[in-house]
């Protein structure tokens, strides 16, 4: 256990502790989502099984319970990713509003397919389920920011802004 715990860096542990304090002591497991975020950020944007185990042991949870959370939410990633994650929604509302064209444009512009990372390791393009922004469909999420009512032009603008 002590070995596992050392997988979590000092700042990550401080961050997790901050979250644990917000919940009753017997509900430490409530901190699992922010804990996984902290660990993922610290690990260059993705999670390993070992890191999820470390979170489980730290929070006193069954390991499988952490895997459940870690695999349910699309913001948790289980393989190495580029510096920026582009999540594009292709669920019903976005699809009806033209997400196929958005995906096609993103793939053309970045030169990669869905699920791939650019050669310079800058962008990873992923198809995700509904991100609860149907009112602004089609939409995508770049890292933590939402971009709605997308058009190819708007995408170019956003990506250009990130090129520097």
């Amino acid at each position, binding site marked *: 256990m002590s070995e596992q715990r050392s997988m979590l860096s000092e700042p990550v542990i401080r961050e997790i502790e901050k979250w644990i304090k917000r919940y009753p002591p017997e509900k430490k497991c409530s901190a699992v989502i922010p804990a996984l975020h902290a660990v993922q950020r610290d690990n260059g944007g993705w999670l390993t*099984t070992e890191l999820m185990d470390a979170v489980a042991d730290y929070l006193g949870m*069954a*390991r*499988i*319970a952490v*895997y*459940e959370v870690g*695999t*349910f*939410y*699309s913001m948790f990633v289980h393989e190495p990713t580029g510096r920026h994650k582009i999540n594009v929604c292709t669920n019903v509302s976005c699809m009806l509003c033209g997400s196929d064209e958005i995906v096609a444009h993103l793939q053309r512009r970045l030169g990669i397919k869905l699920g791939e990372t650019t050669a310079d390791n800058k962008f990873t393009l992923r198809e995700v*389920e509904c991100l609860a922004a149907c009112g602004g469909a089609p939409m995508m999420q770049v890292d933590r920011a939402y971009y709605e009512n997308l058009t190819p032009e708007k995408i170019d603008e956003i990506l250009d802004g990130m090129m520097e």
Partner: protein
Amino acid sequence: MVTIEIDGQKLEAESGAMLIEVADKAGIYIPRFCYHEKLSIAANCRMCLVEVEKAPKPLPACATPVMEGMTVHTKSPKALAAQRGTMEFLLINHPLDCPICDQGGECDLQETAMGYGGDSSEYTDAKRVVKDKNLGSLISTDMTRCIHCTRCVRFGQEIAGIMELGATGRGEHMEIGTYVEKSIDSELSGNMIDLCPVGALTSKPFRYTSRPWELSATETIAPHDCLGSNIVLHNRFDKIKRALPRDNEDINECWISDRDRFSYQGLSNDRLLQPMIKERGVWQEVDWETALTKVAQSFDTIREQHGANQIGALLSPSSTLEESFLLQKLVRDLGSSNVDHRMRQLDFSADDTAPVYPSLGIKIRELDQLDAALLVGSNIRKEQPIAGHRLRKAALAGAKVSLVNGLDYELSFSAAETIIVSPSCYASELAGIAKALLEKGASAPGGIANLVNGVTVSQPQRTIAQQLSDGDKSAVILGTQLLHHHDYATIRALAIAIAKMSHSSLGALTDGANSSGAWLAGAVPHRVVDGVAASRVGLNTQQMLTQGLRSYILLGIEPEFDVINAQQAISALSHAELTVMLSAYVSDTMREYADVLLPIGAFSETSGTFVNIEGNWQSFTGSVPPPGEARPAWKVLRVLGNLCQVEGFDYTSSEEVRDEVARMTTDSPDLLGGWRCPAELKTGGGEVYTVSDVPMYAVDAIVRRASALQNTVDAKNTQAASMNSRCAEKHGLTDANQVRLSASGVEISLPLRINERVADNCVYVPAAVSATMMYDFSQQAVQIQR
């Protein structure tokens, strides 16, 4: 209470109850997959949709609380359409592989599809495929068939107490599994097979061997622990194919342990099929008459030449009440009183004050309702899994469960206090708890105040004392390991004192399935039926084997595993002029020390009765005939009785034997026993002591031969010794893979594991496994060498 109407039937219901519970009670069936009365409500399968008047949409009956005046239709066109719609969705991804699916014929999905589904589907796309998982030797998976009811996941979280399966991924990508390659290790895991409503989780040993409609069922009692779980055995062509639980809310609810479920595999290996006699060192197969005549004549000769007290009888604590009664009757009628079923007991000094039979002190179902409990020398979770499950229920409801053990066993709940000490300190720990109770002003049984006078009370001891006396319903329970303790009488006396002073019940968890029945039947040297003192006191197991008798008759035991000091047992048996074994099994070791081998039926092949730890007489019939020439042991003993010309051996059925015992027993036996204060408190010296238990899958001859159980992690972990790192360091074993242990001149070498859960200055050695067969477990102190 509220009044509701379901399908035109007016029903009274507990307010807050769910519709499906009320309907179930009234015998109105609503189809369901995820709902199970013992599990939390998930409401994720949607199969139980029903029409509720004034509700705009159909509602799930499992998650809809009843309300006054509710009118429900479970078979209205609207309800049926909703159910048919759900069924169509559930079948979208379910493969149509019923002909090759093991669940076929007993599949909830198959049956519900027939009863509530449509005859076609609008779905034409490809079905998804999910990769199978390897969950170990007990559970087989076909995860493509899974309909995500999550019963197995909830079972792990809520009942077994270790979450091993989970639902990873989301939506179309959701999968039930372990995520990483891992076996399912819960001692109750097989129940997931029963819970799975489809063929996703099936029994690995049973797989592809039979169709359910080809099997005939016999109701019987599980023979591996003192709970007596109710089971049903399924057989085909006179072979047991599987074991399933039978509902009994007072004992096992709807669950059984993996041991009770998968042990049947051991019924087909190494069976003794023909009576055999060793003549001048050569084994010969003979007929029953020859064999039994030879035994009767040999007993006669021994009686004439050396006296009847040279006959000793040793029987398994899992022999039936009838077998136990007949064997002690035979031996006593021959003029000997040497009969005992306590194969692992060492300290018999409390025999005269023992209760009529050992009992739990409370009903098994009352374990759930305890407020506080103290367990001493017990790995309850593995030794009596169903009792462990019930104690977990109490702990989840807030009970303070504390333990005194030599090994900090992994529990399925969190303990209030855990005292981990060398077994040589159990007595002083209990003395501390007794002292704490005395200091609180409790009145102690005679002599205790004096005995614990010099004891200083530690904080954990004080806490346990407080918890026991605070609890309305509290219990002190002596575990199976404690019954094998050197200082059993002293520890038991202290436990009696603690129970009396804290107004707790006192109970024990015994070896085998019928230890209580063996006591009742008189299969102990100092008492006959119903605890009546024997006119002639005979020798107990230890005395019989250390003194060495001229002849022995053994029933249902393998001494090399079942007797606490196997080496001594084998030596005594080999030196005897006559060793008769009534055994279902034969092994090379047996062929060496036995002189006559008489094949008997296992529990599934004989009628009989087990008396469980709450004193419940549970009779059963044989499921299949014994193989070969084997016969039920009660019949063999009856014929042997006739041949030995003893009176009253004319029974025509095992029921007659049982009824005779029943007539001799009183309705309210003394289950408390007498009181005698121990003379002194012994405390251990500086030596290293052995902490030992009989691992879950080594308890008896059947389990030891059950191959799937032997391939579990639990069984594989039992071939090594372990100690904590401090102890290892002290003996220069920090980096050693092997350790040599010697006690009373016998040395064994075992793989060594470092385990911080073992008490200081102790080495854990598993009993009843081949690696430690020759180890002398009757010695407490042990020498350790690299």
